């Protein structure tokens, strides 16, 4: 009991339920369409609509940009359903400073695209297909994320 409470001070059921639902989403996408539901590629493929450089005009971006945008739209709709139907509907906000969101976001976008995957691409889809390079990628970004988050918490406390 006390161990559960110290590991999960806000409860654990909603975490597990959410994780299972996310897994069902990736499974549904795969069973119906055969597509791999990682999230970070949409940030490159969408640029292919406006940036003419050969890098962005690769088939892996232009062929997938439509469904990736639809997938992203679904993401917003699903969260909206939760917000309006299951939460109190009060706009959520974050206390993380804007410069951290912007600078952190930049590194997230740059790093995920350079490393070809993020928490969903390497984490869920990569580990879900038992790819050892993805496991190494997950261990790497978990490591640098732990370090960064703790250093920032100490310095900016």
């Amino acid at each position, binding site marked *: 009991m006390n161990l559960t409470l110290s590991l999960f001070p806000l409860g654990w059921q909603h975490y597990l339920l959410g994780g299972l639902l996310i897994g069902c989403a990736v499974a549904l996408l795969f069973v119906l369409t055969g597509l791999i539901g990682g999230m970070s590629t949409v940030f490159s493929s969408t640029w292919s609509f406006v940036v003419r450089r050969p890098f962005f005009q690769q088939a892996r971006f232009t062929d997938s940009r439509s469904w990736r945008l639809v997938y992203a739209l679904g993401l917003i709709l*699903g969260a909206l359903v939760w917000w309006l139907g299951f939460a109190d509907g009060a706009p959520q906000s974050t206390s993380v400073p804007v410069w951290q969101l912007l600078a952190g976001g930049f590194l997230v976008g740059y790093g995920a695209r350079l490393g070809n995957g993020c928490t969903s691409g390497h984490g869920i889809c990569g580990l879900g297909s038992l790819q050892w390079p993805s496991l190494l990628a997950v261990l790497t970004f978990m490591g640098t994320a732990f370090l960064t988050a703790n250093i920032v918490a100490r310095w900016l406390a």
Partner: protein
Amino acid sequence: MSAQGLSVPRFLAVLAAGALFGFGLAISTMVQPEVVLSFLRFQDFGLMLVMGGAVGVTLLAYKLAPRLLTRPLLGGSFHAHPSAWNRDTAVGAALFGVGWGLCGVCPGPAIAGLGTGNWTLLWALGGIALGALVQGLRAR
């Protein structure tokens, strides 16, 4: 919507899968950077349950579907997640982690969070889009 090559059934399937993903991210509070950062600071291990649950179901689907079905239900073929361990993957993952530890937002929650009226997350979303652009411009 330019959806060339995206039939109505596939459009609806992708939209439904995305919605389920977004609902899962919202209910597990992964759309709140504070919750992700509290995991990274060892204060709440919930993210492990989210990852574990998602990987478990995905593993089953990725293993079983190609054995039980000759092709996906809506046609096409079963794709595979391409991953290779090289310098780009190592450096990219390391930078991704630094950014994630700084802001507590990764690509999925940056998008899904907008559905919870959290407009502040647009800063992270813009940052990610900019990072992806610069990565593509720097690539050969």
